[in-house]
């Protein structure tokens, strides 16, 4: 059950997390591009000084003196000519400070005492190549993965269970023909088809589910068919048939409820595969599109930045891996518990 606990933690992290982090997933902080992870908030003392020096140079002035007073930056700027106070707007535009105001004007405006609030920003996982908070982006990406996992599985579930139950219940020639089709489809290089599908019909969000579901229903169909074949000969089905219940009603009323155990166990194993497939597509740039993100997109971006920003790879990779590992663990456990035949 460790798998379930980890999974619950990840789900909570992804679902509730974005409400607790200070930044939106698509908020860009130009000053913090590729900022390494830091446990305490930005700007640090050095960063504040650098940012101040940068602003001062844009105002054509030098920093004579500067110190941090709690959440306030106090500084004295000086220049050869009177300083244009309109330049103080640069403070507001930077990510480190709020709007600055003038405390005192000395020496015909050549010396300027100013105070500006420091804007604290917490980036515990660092920032990406566009200066966006990686932690929030990972949470959003995790959400996408969870949604894709649920919806992709739902598509596979509907197609697979219907197909398998009908084939198993019909039996005979119909069953033969339907299962032959599954055999043929099995031999297809499906990953290639999904890639074609995504490229050809645009990178629409809904299409991802359809494409993934359309690929992953084969196993489900086989398992359900096998189970239906054995259920069909049980007394309660024979009794229902004898009472003249229509085949569709038997399938829904008598067969489907008895498939739940096997299907649930298999679903738990299918989910990580669906999530993996979506991340793979996104990794290739064919899945979820910017500014929305997915773990595959994040890993791809990390892979492009391994030279100078390895945390962009390590964090998303760790999240994706633990998610998949937990799901697999859970799936194995469920299968052992619900489906003792297939150990």
């Amino acid at each position, binding site marked *: 059950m460790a798998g379930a606990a980890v999974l619950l933690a990840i789900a909570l992290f992804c679902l509730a997390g974005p409400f607790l982090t200070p930044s939106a997933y698509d908020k860009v902080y130009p000053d913090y591009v590729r900022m390494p992870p830091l446990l305490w908030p930005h700007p640090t003392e050095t960063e504040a000084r650098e940012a101040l020096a940068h602003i001062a140079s844009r105002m054509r002035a030098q920093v004579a003196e500067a110190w941090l007073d709690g959440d306030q930056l106090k500084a004295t700027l000086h220049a050869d000519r009177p300083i244009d106070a309109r330049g103080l707007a640069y403070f507001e535009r930077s990510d480190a400070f709020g709007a600055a105001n003038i405390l005192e004007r000395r020496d015909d405006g050549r010396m300027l005492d100013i105070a500006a609030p420091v804007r604290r920003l917490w980036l515990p996982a660092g920032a990406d190549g566009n200066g966006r908070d990686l932690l929030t982006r990972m949470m959003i990406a995790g959400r996408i993965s969870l949604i894709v996992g649920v919806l992709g599985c739902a598509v596979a579930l509907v197609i697979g269970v219907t197909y398998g139950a009908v084939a198993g219940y019909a039996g005979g020639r119909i069953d033969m023909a339907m299962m032959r089709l599954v055999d043929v489809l099995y*031999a297809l290089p499906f990953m*290639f088809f999904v*890639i074609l599908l995504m490229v050809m019909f645009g990178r629409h969000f809904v299409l991802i589910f359809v494409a993934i579901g359309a690929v992953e229903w084969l196993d489900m169909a086989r398992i359900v068919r096998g189970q239906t074949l054995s259920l069909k000969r049980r007394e309660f089905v024979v009794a229902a048939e004898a009472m003249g219940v229509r085949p569709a009603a038997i399938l829904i009323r008598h067969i489907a409820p008895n498939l739940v155990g096997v299907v649930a166990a298999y679903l738990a194993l299918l989910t990580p595969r669906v999530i993996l497939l979506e991340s793979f597509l996104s*990794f290739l740039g064919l899945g979820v599109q910017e500014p929305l993100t997915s773990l595959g997109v994040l*890993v791809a971006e990390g892979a492009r930045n*391994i030279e100078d920003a390895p945390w962009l790879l390590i964090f998303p990779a760790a999240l994706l891996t633990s998610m998949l590992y937990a799901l*697999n663990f859970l799936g194995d456990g469920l299968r052992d518990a619900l489906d003792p035949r297939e150990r």
Partner: protein
Amino acid sequence: MIVQRIAWSIPTLLVVVTLAFFLMRAAPGGPFDLERPLDPAVMENLHRIYRLDEPLWRQYLAYLSALAHGDLGPSYYWRDFTVNELFAKALPISAKLGATALALALVVGVAAGAFAAARAKSAADTAVTAAASLGVTLPTFVVAPLLQLVFGVWLKMLPVGGYGDGATRNLVLPVIVLAAPQVAAVARLTRNAMIEALASPASRTLRAYGLPRRVVLAHAFRAALIPLVSYLGPAAAGIMTGSVVVETIFGIPGVGRYFVEAALNRDYTLAMGAVVLVAVSVIAVNLLADIAYAFIDPRVRLE
């Protein structure tokens, strides 16, 4: 039975080709769409040369008949090359990579699996099992950049990417990444099969005769190899899928990378060619595995 198996692979292939062909053509956008639209006359000429002006069913039949002769057509993007020429360069690279990875997966996987099974429930067994389930879980596209980071950027032992005309240094990481999930799967399979074989009546009899443990293990090992044969097909398919990622990440000019590029460029013939090539390889490996299985395990032939 073998004849029947071979006969079944033809409709399978036909389904692949048909699906791929119509999927490509149903999509909006064509291979000659540029940022700036071409002159209609030029466009018309291009379409005539590549026979895109004919009705779809005739294009389909023309493609099928060319395919039957082993001709995959001209590439729409690499205008001066045919798909066959492109593959002639790319296929040996992919094949070398894939075959090495498969061999590595079999050797390491079987060794690790047998080792774990011989010491079932020991610490070594637990370690192998845990590593294997991690290996099965870890996606290729996560392992590849992580290894690049560790061995290429931090340790500076191996190049981060590039083919380097097939230098061993350049191939180490791609082969490892490609093989890793298969090593894990093979190890799992071997371990389970061998534990089952060790519990079988045959092994019990050998033990009852008082034969040394070494002999019992050797017998169980041979029995455990049988289910492995039927895993060859999925393993080969997995490696081919993996090569799409590995070749893209490491910048290796193989079929996998051509495929992604071709799909993005709407290079119909090249992408189709890659799909057909992969489908043929997967079907062929599955067929070979089935035949080998029938020879190794006489029980299969009776069915």
